């Protein structure tokens, strides 16, 4: 029904009294993109989502859908649909009535509603669940019902506020895959809020990292992970060794010595633990001998803490490497493993 559309946010700002929840935020979301808003608690993710959904009126700024200004539009009129963190399923309606709610308030024919509800439930793997009560559905099933309820209205943009927060790890992984597959199949734009960086990387086409109401970093997962723009982004997207120093002409001069860096920042260097190794490889650079401090077995890898000069650094190495290591180990920086930060 609704076609995919391009969402532009221009200078969006939201004040709550003294607090500035979102500050002069400008962002473009192309049609059919899976966008993940990632950020610590209080960074303004929910507020932003709620402005897109029309539940919160911005203090300033405009929102355009393709060319239409939707800033003042009521939630009911917007081609958006929201999946709430606690799902907000209607407890007095059964599964079918919940999913069909958005259609029945539009006075669509009973038979048509029935068909579309059945389709939507089928799509989320709950075919035939129409007559179950909500209280009989498990956490994962509720999540899917909420999804079906939102999708059945065929929104241009689906908004999801920490939709997987309440699920356990295995179910979460499974639902991540399903959400991603669904988004690709349906071709709609999904805007998904989370504070779990692994989840973000697993599903996003584009990650937006927020902090204190502003966008700290944005881009495809791989870019944001490998080439963080800022210290905050580097640390928030996973463990990182931040090394102070000066960066000139693709080389950094730091406490750990001189080594090549990628990126064009000048404010320090970020090195992911998995880009440090105990064995040399093609194009790697030795950073010198370090004292092993602690090793924690983590299944597929071992997390290692070592002292290199005055700096404590963290490495992530294959279990076999650590088995052969002594007290003193030589540390190598893999090729392209260091990124210069912009902030």
């Amino acid at each position: 029904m609704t076609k995919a559309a391009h969402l532009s946010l221009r200078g969006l700002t939201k004040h709550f009294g003294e607090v500035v929840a979102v500050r002069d935020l400008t962002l473009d979301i192309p049609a059919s993109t899976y966008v993940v808003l990632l950020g610590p608690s209080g960074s303004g993710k929910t507020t932003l989502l709620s402005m897109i959904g029309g539940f919160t009126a911005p203090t300033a700024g405009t929102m355009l859908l393709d060319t239409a200004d939707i800033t003042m539009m009521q939630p009911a009129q917007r081609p958006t649909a929201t999946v709430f963190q606690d799902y907000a399923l209607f407890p007095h309606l059964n599964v079918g009535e919940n999913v069909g709610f958005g259609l029945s308030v539009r006075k669509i024919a009973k038979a048509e509603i029935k068909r579309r509800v059945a389709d939507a439930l089928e799509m989320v793997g709950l075919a035939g669940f129409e007559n179950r009560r909500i209280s009989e559905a498990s956490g994962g099933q509720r999540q899917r019902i909420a999804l079906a309820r939102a999708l059945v209205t065929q929104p241009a943009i689906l908004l999801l506020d920490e939709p997987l927060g309440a699920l356990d790890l295995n179910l979460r992984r499974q639902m991540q895959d399903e959400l991603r597959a669904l988004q690709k199949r349906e071709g709609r734009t999904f805007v998904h809020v989370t504070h779990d960086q692994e989840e973000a990387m697993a599903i996003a086409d584009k990650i937006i990292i927020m902090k204190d109401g502003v966008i700290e970093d944005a881009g495809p997962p791989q870019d944001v992970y490998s080439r963080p723009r800022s210290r905050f982004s580097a640390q928030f997207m996973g463990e990182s060794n931040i090394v102070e120093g000066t960066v000139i002409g693709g080389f950094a001069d730091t406490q750990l010595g001189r080594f090549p860096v990628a990126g064009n920042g000048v404010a320090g260097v970020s090195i992911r633990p998995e880009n440090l190794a105990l064995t040399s490889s093609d194009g790697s650079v030795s950073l010198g001998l370090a004292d092993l401090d602690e090793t924690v077995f983590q299944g597929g890898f071992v997390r290692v803490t070592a002292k290199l000069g005055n700096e404590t650094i963290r490495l992530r190495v294959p279990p076999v490497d650590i088995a052969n290591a002594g007290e003193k180990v030589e540390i190598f920086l893999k090729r392209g493993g260091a990124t210069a930060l912009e902030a």
Partner: protein
Amino acid sequence: MTLTTTVSPEKLAERRERRQGLLLVAPAALWTLAFFLIPTLAIFWLSLFKKIGGRIGDELTLANYERFATQGYFRESLFNSLELTAIVAVISICLAYPLAATIAFRVAPRLRRLCLMLAVLPFWTSYVVRSYAWLLVLAPNGVVNQALLSTGLLSEPLTLSFTKGATILGFVHFFTMLGTLTIYASLARINPRLILAARDLGATQWQTFWRVVFPLSIPGVVAGVFLIIVVTIGDYVTPQILGGNNELVLPQTIIMQIQRRADIPMAAALSVSMMLVVSLAYLLMARKLTAERS
């Protein structure tokens, strides 16, 4: 040490817990048993005797119930009570609901407690005194009539007090406050995101109300209605004062049996009938309440 015992640890622990539990519950349970259940059963028992010339007979008889069934004014008073209760319940809920909904959804959060407080404070004016105060309000030279006269809508004051309408008004006033409390409580419990979700899915304000808010507030409405029934059907003060005794209600007949005739068995029989009515209402509503909850 206890290797020889055959009782499982679980059973021993259970026994200890049960003993402690019973000990803790006993005072309240015994109190209710002794001072509520036994007296209530006593009323039932007493209703099966007949009062003859100052003495309570010692033969079991259904004579009191027979009298209840055959004496016209008893049946009429029961009917009046039921009718009154129904009217009061409907009007009170119709007034309390909008007030509760306004406070819950339209008043700024920091003012909500204040509004609610204000709305229920008069609850604590002495019940009897408040009924007499209504007489002054409704009098021919009271505020209501004076206000109507001054607008020129009326040339003669209306007869407002000592009518069935006045009785209803007195009850409605009381239950508007009470109903506002119970309905507000269930409205406040509604997850606000359910309302957002309904709006998000395209429901108009009306649709959101009728299809989401109202169904979810039914427990509060039912609780309110139940309280209204229990109190209205058991009160004789308001009909006597505000209604000018123009219509006999069931509790008045009960009090009459005691005050004029000292015929406690008959009063007991009437009380039992009253309890039956309330229990019936309770059973009907309990089903509704539990159905909503699950």
